[in-house]
C-alpha cells in the first residue's frame, strides 16, 4: 500500500508536461461497481475495459487481439488452450503481472458468487506452467474460448488479498467495489458513485498511447433531454446514447458529430410456446393461439417493420431475420429475408388457424430498456389490431419487467438480445435451447420454446472445431428457428453516439467506449 503511494508520487513527478486535454463524457447508466467480476453488465464491463485488461481484447473491428497474453494456441486435440503472457506488465500500484494473477483472477471470476462464472463453464482446470505460461483445460473442445474471455479482466492477487477482496461481494461491497488496480491504459483517480468517476492515463502502461487525454471524467445523466442539452452547450464532450429522434438535427449542427453504427442487439417478439391458454384474453380463455405456427407467422406478416424503422427509428436501424445481426459470427446470409409485411396473408393465416375474427391478448413491453421500446410496442399494437388481433399493451419499467416474464405473465413480449460472445451460438444457448436449469441452458427462453433437433445441435456447435462444419450446423438451427417462428426478430437496434466536433474516437459495435482511442483536437 505504502509502496504504491510512493510509486504513484514518483510517476506523477516524472509525468511529461503536456497540454491538459480534458475529456468529459456522459452516459445514461453509471457503472454500478468497479469490481470487474461482480456484475456482468455492459455499463460495468464497458467502463472497466479502460482500467483493467484481459488476456485478450477486442480491436476496433471486434477482432480478438493480444492484450496481457501475447499469443495462444490449442493444446493437443482440443483439450484446452495455452496462453503465453506478456512480460514486464505493471499494475497501477506497481506490482508485476504474472501467471499467479491469472490463476487468482480465474478463481475469483469463476467463483459461485461471481457474475462472470458462466464464462468458465467449459473449463475443467487451469494450470500455471511457469510465470508466463498458463494452460486452460476444457472438458470438451472449445474453439471460441479465447474470444469468449475478452471481458475477463485480470486483477492483482497481492492487491486483492491485501485489501481483503479475494472474492466479489454483491451484497455488502468491499474494497474492489470502489477501488481499482488494473493494468489498463487509465487508472481511476476519483470515484463518486452516481456522480463522477475521474480517470488519468497510467504512465506505466505497456502499450503505445494513441490518445492525448490527460484527464477524463465520466458523469451519468439519466434524462435524455438533459444529456443532449449538455452536449449541445458543450458541458460534456460526448454522450451515449443520443436519442434516436435527435440524430438528424444533431447531424446538421456544425459543433457536434453523430457517430452511428449497428449494435449487436436484436429486437424481437417472443411467444408463450408452452402455455395452455392465454392469460389476458377477454374471449379465448381455454386455448393458446400462439401455440399454432400459423398464428405466429400471421404476427410476423402483420408487423410492418419497415414502417417502424422509417418513423420511430428514423431510418437508423436495420431489419433482421435471425437472432443475431449480420455483424456477428455465424450469421446466415442465405436466410436474410424477413417475412414480408402482408396484411392479407396475415388475415388468411389467422383464418386458417381458426381465428377468422381474431382474438385479444396481452402484450408486455419494457419502457426504459431498449431504444423507444414503448413507442415500438404501441405501433405493433396498432398493426396487429389492423389484422384483427387486439393486444392490450402493458408497458413497464425494466425492474418490473423481468419478474413478470419469469412469472409467465404475458401472452407476447418484447425482447432484445445482444450476444456477449458476438457469436450465433450465444442466443441459441440462452433463447432457443429447451430451458434446463442443471445444464444452464435456455435461461432467457421465457416462452419455453423447445425443439429436439436444436437441443441436439447446440452441443455440437459448441465443440466443433472445423469452421465450415460448425457454420453448417448454425445454418440448420437458424433455419429451424425461422421455420418454427420461435421468435419474430424485427430489427437491430442502432448505436448512436454524439460528440463535440473536436473529438475523434472509434465506435466499437459492442457499444463499449474505449478511452484510449479518443483524440481531443
Amino acid at each position: 500500500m505504502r509502496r504504491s503511494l510512493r510509486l504513484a508520487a514518483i510517476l506523477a513527478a516524472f509525468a511529461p508536461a503536456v497540454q491538459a486535454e480534458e475529456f468529459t463524457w456522459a452516459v445514461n447508466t453509471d457503472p454500478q461497481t468497479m469490481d470487474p467480476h461482480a456484475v456482468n453488465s455492459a455499463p460495468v464491463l464497458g467502463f472497466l475495459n479502460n482500467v483493467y485488461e484481459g488476456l485478450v481484447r477486442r480491436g476496433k473491428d471486434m477482432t480478438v487481439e493480444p492484450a496481457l497474453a501475447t499469443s495462444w494456441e490449442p493444446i493437443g486435440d482440443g483439450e484446452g488452450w495455452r496462453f503465453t503472457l506478456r512480460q514486464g506488465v505493471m499494475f497501477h500500484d506497481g506490482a508485476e503481472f504474472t501467471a499467479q494473477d491469472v490463476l487468482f483472477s480465474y478463481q475469483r471470476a469463476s467463483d459461485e458468487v461471481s457474475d462472470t462464472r458462466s464464462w468458465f463453464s467449459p473449463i475443467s482446470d487451469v494450470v500455471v506452467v511457469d510465470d508466463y505460461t498458463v494452460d486452460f483445460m476444457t472438458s470438451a473442445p472449445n474453439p471460441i474460448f479465447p474470444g469468449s474471455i475478452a471481458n475477463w479482466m485480470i486483477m492483482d492477487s497481492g492487491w486483492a488479498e491485501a485489501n481483503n477482496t479475494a472474492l466479489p461481494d454483491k451484497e455488502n461491497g468491499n474494497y474492489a467495489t470502489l477501488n481499482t488496480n488494473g493494468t489498463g491504459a487509465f487508472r481511476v483517480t476519483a470515484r463518486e458513485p452516481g456522480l463522477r468517476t475521474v480517470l488519468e492515463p497510467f504512465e506505466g502502461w505497456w502499450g503505445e498511447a494513441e490518445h492525448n487525454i490527460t484527464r477524463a471524467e465520466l458523469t451519468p445523466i439519466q434524462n435524455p433531454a438533459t444529456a443532449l442539452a449538455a452536449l449541445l452547450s458543450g458541458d460534456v464532450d460526448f454522450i451515449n446514447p443520443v436519442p434516436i429522434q435527435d440524430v438528424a438535427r444533431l447531424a446538421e449542427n456544425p459543433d457536434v458529430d453523430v457517430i452511428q453504427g449497428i449494435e449487436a442487439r436484436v429486437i424481437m417478439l417472443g411467444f408463450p410456446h408452452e402455455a395452455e391458454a392465454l392469460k389476458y384474453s377477454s374471449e379465448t380463455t381455454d386455448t393458446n393461439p400462439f401455440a399454432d405456427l400459423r398464428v405466429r407467422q400471421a404476427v410476423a406478416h402483420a408487423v410492418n417493420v419497415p414502417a417502424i424503422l422509417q418513423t420511430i427509428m428514423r431510418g437508423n436501424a436495420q431489419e433482421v431475420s435471425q437472432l443475431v445481426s449480420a455483424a456477428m459470427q455465424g450469421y446466415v446470409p442465405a436466410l436474410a429475408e424477413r417475412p414480408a409485411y402482408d396484411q392479407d396473408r396475415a388475415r388468411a393465416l389467422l383464418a386458417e388457424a381458426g381465428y377468422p375474427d381474431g382474438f385479444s391478448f396481452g402484450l408486455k413491453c419494457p419502457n426504459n430498456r431498449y431504444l423507444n421500446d414503448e413507442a415500438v410496442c404501441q405501433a405493433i399494437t396498432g398493426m396487429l389490431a389492423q389484422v384483427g388481433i387486439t393486444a392490450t399493451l402493458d408497458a413497464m419499467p425494466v425492474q418490473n419487467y423481468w419478474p413478470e416474464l419469469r412469472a409467465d405473465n404475458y401472452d407476447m413480449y418484447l425482447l432484445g438480445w445482444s450476444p456477449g460472445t458476438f457469436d450465433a451460438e450465444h442466443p441459441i444457448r440462452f433463447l432457443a435451447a429447451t430451458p434446463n436449469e442443471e445444464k444452464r441452458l435456455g435461461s432467457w427462453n421465457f416462452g419455453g420454446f423447445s425443439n429436439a433437433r436444436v437441443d441436439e445441435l447446440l452441443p455440437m456447435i459448441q465443440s466443433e472445431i472445423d469452421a465450415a462444419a460448425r457454420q453448417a450446423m448454425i445454418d440448420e438451427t437458424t433455419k429451424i428457428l425461422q421455420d418454427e417462428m420461435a421468435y419474430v426478430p424485427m430489427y437491430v437496434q442502432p448505436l448512436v453516439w454524439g460528440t463535440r466536433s473536436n473529438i475523434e474516437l472509434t465506435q466499437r459495435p459492442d457499444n463499449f467506449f474505449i478511452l484510449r482511442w479518443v483524440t481531443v483536437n
Partner: protein
Amino acid sequence: MSDFPIPVKPKSRLRIALDSDLFYTFRRSPVAMVSAVVVLVLVLSAVLAPLIAPTNPFNPASLNLMNGFTPPMTPNAFTGESFFMGTDDQGRDVFSTILYGMRISLFVGVAAVFFAMVLGITLGLISGYVGGWTETIIMRTADVQLTFPSILVAMLIFGIAKGVTPVEYRDQMAIWVLILAIGLSDWVQFARVVRGATLVEKNKEYVQAARLIGRTPGAIMLRHILPNVLSPVLVIATISLALAIIAEATLSFLGVGAPPTQPSLGTLIRIGQGFLFSGEWWILLFPAVTLLALALSVNLLGDWLRDALNPRLR
C-alpha cells in the same frame, strides 16, 4: 327529517352570496370572465371530443404509422395526408389527441378533487366534532399522508393495483389509480380547514341548540356545520383542481401517469419533451399551451373566487 324549523343562517348566507354578490363581482372582473370563457370552451371541447375530433386517437387500429411526425398543415411525405396541428410519433393527429387527452386530464382532476373533498370533509368534520382519540388518529394519519410525497403514494397504489388487476383492465386502472393517488395526497388540506371551522362552530349557540333538541351528530354536522365551511372548501377545491391536473402531468413524467395508448395532456407533454431538440416542436407545444391555458384559467378563477367569497377583502 325533523319538523322543527331550525334557524338556517348558514345556508342563507351562501345563497345570498351566490345570488347577488358573487355574480356582481364576477361581472366586474374581466380576468374572471375571460378565464371562465376559456375554461368553458376547453371543458366543452373535451366533453364533445368524439364529435369534434377528426380522428379517434385511442383506437390503435385506425393509426397509420407512416403518418408519423407530420408537421402542422403540411401534407405527409408518404401518405399525403395533412393535419391541423400535425401528428406525433405514432401518426396520431395531435389536435384529436389533445381533445381526448384533455378529457382524461379533466376527468382525473375533477374526480381526484371530488374524492379528496369528500374524504377531507368527512374526516375533518368527524375529527373536529368528535375529538378525542378519533381526532388524534385522523390527524396523525394526515401527518403520515403529508410525509409521503404524492409521487410515492401514486407508485404505491399503482404497484398494489397492478398486482390485483387483470391486464385487460390496466389501461382503465391507471386512470383510477391516478385519481386515488392525487386525491389521497390532497384530502389533508380539506380536512384541516373543515376541522378548524368545526372546532369554532360546534360551540356556537345554534349548534348547542340543535343538540339540545336531540338532532343526531350526523345531522348537525351535515346540516349546520358543513354549510359554514363551504366557501373555503370551494376555494381550495378550485385551486386543487389546477394542482391535480399539474400533478397528473408530473406523475406522468416519472412514468406512473396515464398510459401512452390513452394519453392525458401530461403524458402528451412527457412524450413531446423528447422531441424538443429534434425539431418536432408541435408535439410538445400544442399540448403544453393547452395545459397552460386550462390550469391558468382555473387558477385565476380560484383566485377570483377566494377574493369574492371573502367579504372582508372587498
